[in-house]
């Protein structure tokens, strides 16, 4: 397969950046999108051009590192996949593909397609944890009964890999889906109740401080989320925040 790639090139955070066009051929339809970029980079290195910098790690769809905005969508046209799980068979031979970094004030570009998503880490640090000792004598797994639907919903929320596709795709660059998933995974479980109020207040506060936008409930985030996190979680966080704002001391 052959492709024309329009790739965002930016030398560093301060550089203005621009689109560059490259041709790649000898791409197999079984290649993942990242492998196709590897082919491009081999080609660029051969030509003495700086290779395209991009984030990646596990390449099996669970780490959340790969972060490209492909043809106007986070992680490209596939549903329920990260960029590493997007395969070239999703495209037609000869397609023109536009590749950009995730764009948000809170996700500054480091170089080319790589952005700094440590704003997510700071939201987690603000309250996305339970302060219990998890080493040593663990209680029996069935000591605290939890209803199956609640356990399932908490686990579904916990599958968020923090990739930032929700922010990238949101027209407001809002981090509500991420933050609400991280609030929900504890809000549904008894272990999360002790710090529930402070958690939601602090995490939302940090989310605001990072400069993310507001939620317009367009639902674009849940469509693009590689893990299928539902905006049900956003409603739950809205509920938790409202009640915590009214009742916290």
């Amino acid at each position, binding site marked *: 397969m052959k492709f024309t790639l*329009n790739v*965002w090139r930016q030398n560093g955070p301060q550089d203005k950046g621009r*689109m560059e066009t490259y041709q790649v051929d000898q791409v197999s339809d079984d290649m993942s999108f990242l492998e196709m970029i590897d082919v491009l980079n081999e080609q660029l290195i051969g030509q003495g051009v700086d290779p395209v910098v991009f984030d990646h790690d596990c390449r099996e769809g669970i780490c959340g590192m790969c972060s490209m*905005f492909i*043809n*106007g*969508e986070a992680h490209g*046209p596939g549903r329920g996949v990260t960029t590493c799980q997007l395969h070239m068979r999703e495209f037609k031979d000869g397609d023109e593909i*536009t590749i*950009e970094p995730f*764009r*948000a*004030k*809170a996700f500054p570009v480091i170089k080319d397609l790589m952005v700094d998503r440590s704003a997510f880490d700071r939201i987690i640090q603000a309250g996305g944890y339970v302060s219990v000792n998890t080493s040593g004598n663990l209680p029996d797994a069935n000591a605290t009964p939890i209803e199956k639907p609640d356990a399932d919903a908490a686990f579904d929320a916990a599958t968020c890999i923090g990739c930032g596709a929700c922010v990238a*795709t949101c*027209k*407001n*660059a*809002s981090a509500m889906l991420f933050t609400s998933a991280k609030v929900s995974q504890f809000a549904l479980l008894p272990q999360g109740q002790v710090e529930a*109020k*402070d958690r939601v*207040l*602090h995490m*939302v*506060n940090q*989310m*605001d401080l990072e*400069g*993310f*936008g*507001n*939620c*317009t*409930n*367009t*639902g*674009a985030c849940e*469509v*693009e989320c590689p893990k299928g996190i539902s*905006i*049900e979680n*956003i*409603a*739950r*966080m*809205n*509920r*938790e*925040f*409202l009640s*915590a*704002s*009214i009742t*916290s*001391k």
Partner: protein
Amino acid sequence: MATTRGLFGSSLARKYWMALTGLFLCSFLVIHLLGNLPLLMGKQEAFNAYAHFMTTFPLIKAVSYLLYASILLHTVDGLMLAKQNMAARPANYVKYNGAANANWSSRNMALLGTFTLLFLIIHMKSFWYEMHWGSVPMITDAEGSTYKDLYTITVAAFEQVWYSLFYVVAMISLGFHLWHGFASAFQTMGWSHPRYTPWIKAIGYGFAVLVPATFASIPLYILLT
């Protein structure tokens, strides 16, 4: 102890105010529509009596101040949110396929809201301002009560083609605003439930079509008869 901005200042609080004022404005739309139905039946006396009641009854007057405050809050809050949202993505995408994952009305709430506000200003100047401070001719009904004849003013306004067409376009815009806004307000307040949310959405869609369509039929009816 939480050191946060709580119910005023935080992004979620801003959205709560949008949702609550939006839903209150929806309830106003229903009352306003019911009161205007006499226009569709050509009932001059009933309409004038309604207009008189709405401008003089003390409880309605009190609620009307809440209404003005809601319109103001919904507008100012909405503009502030839109400004923050634009600032949250300073560099735009070269290619952005918004239609791939969200419907048009949900992506254009600020635009639709601004157009609705423009309509509201013209609408209030035409009728609300005239009724309160303008020169509306008086009329005496069969029972001898004297009212301001807002009916004649309204009919005269809607007999102008461009004015009526503007109303129809504004109602279409309002319809799109409500298409997303109604159910969105419930989601913002966290009033989400697997059993009730599908109903809320269905009611929202019905509301977004029926209410603006009935409003739009008033100028069309007057224009065509």
